[in-house]
């Protein structure tokens, strides 16, 4: 054993995050899981990448929406990818701190020099990073699937990557932050109930994504923008596409060209940034309330 005094430095959230990511990468299952998710998302997109939407209220005329046009890419994200992605996030984040108690590593960490804030924020950052890596895998897999369909189907346009990236940043990233923050915070504050937190959030996401379109039903237009699942977004954008389609002659060619122009998504920017920031406040609260002490022992 060396005789010198061991130098010590403050433990930063960045250091906590880096080591946690290193641990995640060392897990032999992680790569397989990520690959499996990629295959799953690609398969989902192959299964559902084309829709027929009504041109008028009488529902007598429909035009096809192709998943690779600018509007179609937003549609794919909004109606397919985001729904499954939101279900996945709680399982990647709720246990980020709670897992240490279950594995009984908690006491080793809590008697080290790491501060509660650095530990909680570092673990959150690592969990969020893992979620975003999953989102990137989902994005790449879906675009590869769509590109494969473009090659194999003569009438299927090339994927509009610019629209997809815009949709990914505006829809996927805020959803990751919101769902990740909520599940992480509750899982951290009540580690014994981490599973219940996951179940509640999954049910909540299903409710927001499928069951109730509260904004439309109650006339709360603001909810269309503030809902993290972005349910109803494509319905909000659709009249603009139809107007463009009609103005350009209402032909098959104009149906495609009307979709190729990315509709304005600016109305969602402030609400989605806003809900992301509000969700991050929950993480700050979890960091402040997180106990080094284990009263239950």
């Amino acid at each position: 054993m060396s005789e010198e005094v061991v130098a010590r430095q403050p433990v930063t959230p960045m250091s906590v995050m880096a080591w946690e990511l290193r641990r995640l990468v060392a897990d032999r299952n992680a790569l397989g899981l990520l690959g499996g998710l990629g295959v799953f998302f690609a398969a989902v997109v192959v299964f559902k990448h084309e829709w027929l939407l009504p041109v008028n209220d009488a529902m007598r005329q429909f035009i096809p929406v192709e998943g690779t046009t600018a509007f179609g890419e937003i549609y794919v994200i909004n109606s397919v990818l985001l729904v499954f992605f939101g279900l996945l996030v709680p399982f990647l984040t709720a246990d980020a701190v709670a897992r240490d108690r279950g594995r009984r590593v908690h006491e080793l960490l809590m008697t080290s020099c790491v501060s509660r804030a650095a530990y909680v924020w570092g673990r959150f950052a690592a969990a969020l990073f893992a979620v975003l890596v999953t989102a990137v895998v989902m994005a790449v897999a879906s675009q590869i699937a769509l590109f494969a369909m473009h090659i194999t189907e003569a009438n299927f346009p090339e994927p509009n990557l610019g629209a997809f990236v815009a949709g990914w940043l505006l829809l996927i990233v805020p959803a990751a932050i919101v769902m990740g923050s909520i599940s992480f915070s509750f899982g951290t504050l009540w580690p014994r109930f981490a599973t219940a937190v996951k179940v509640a959030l999954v049910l909540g996401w299903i409710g927001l994504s499928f069951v109730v379109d509260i904004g439309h039903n109650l006339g709360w237009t603001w909810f269309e923008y503030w809902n993290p699942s972005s349910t109803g977004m494509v319905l909000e954008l659709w009249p603009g596409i139809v107007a463009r389609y009609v103005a350009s002659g209402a032909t098959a060619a104009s149906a495609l060209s009307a979709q190729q122009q990315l509709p304005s998504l600016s109305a969602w920017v402030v609400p989605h940034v806003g809900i992301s920031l509000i969700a991050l406040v929950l993480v700050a609260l979890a960091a402040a309330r997180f106990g080094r002490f284990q009263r239950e022992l």
Partner: protein
Amino acid sequence: MTGLQVNGLGRRFGSRWALRDVSFECEDGLLGLVGPNGAGKTTLMRILATLLPATTGAANWNGSDVGREGRAVRQVLGYLPQSFGVYTELTARNFLRYLSAMKGIPSDVGRRRTDEVLHLVNLDRDADRRLGAFSGGMLQRVGIAQALLNDPEMLIVDEPTSGLDPAERVRFRTMLAGLAEGRLVILSTHIVSDVESVAGRLILLREGRLLADTTPHELIASARGRVWSVTTDAAMASRLQSQNQVSGMVASDGEVTTRIVGPASPAAGAVPVEPTLEDAYLYAVNR
């Protein structure tokens, strides 16, 4: 103020006091903390390790209040809990480097310290194996290695030998005795033989209270004349066992030699014998 001062320390869980009004002081060396299960040893260790707040009293390490200045105490603390887990997906080396980073040890120093503690616990050759493939004894050695990463001034080890085979236990005891030079090692156990040859001082706890603050020699001396050996047939031995505190029984040629701890001779023919530390411990906790 140097060393550890514990003043009137108490901890209540609901209406039950797990630890009550415990006071003692100590400096460098190996302090054995002994007592039966439920005596409050783990509660005391958790308070000293800054994991649990005390309900009453205070503890200070080199002038730092363990409850209020936990950060300063954790800088110089090494802690091995009774039951701990590891990240089984990591190798022993990477697990220790992970914890050295959490202890605030700079990366280059942490790398060197990891090699040193791996060598100290004789895990050099297994350093790059995943912890999921380690035996219980090897994991226990990883546990002590992590507690030594920051070269702690105060090393707290809670029941470190439970689950180890006899050879591992002896090796572990010897290692802890060697570590007690220049630092305080608090070794909690209910296996008295673990501290017999290595502890310079003993703290006895029973039902959350301090029963004795003594040395192994003093404890043995206190039981002198209160340990008896009696050789009888099996039926009588069984009767003696049900009526007295028995510390050992040896059967041979149809007879049973029973070792009994008690203030008075338990039976005709019983002879007083020199107490062991285990006899003395039994006498103290069952008094």
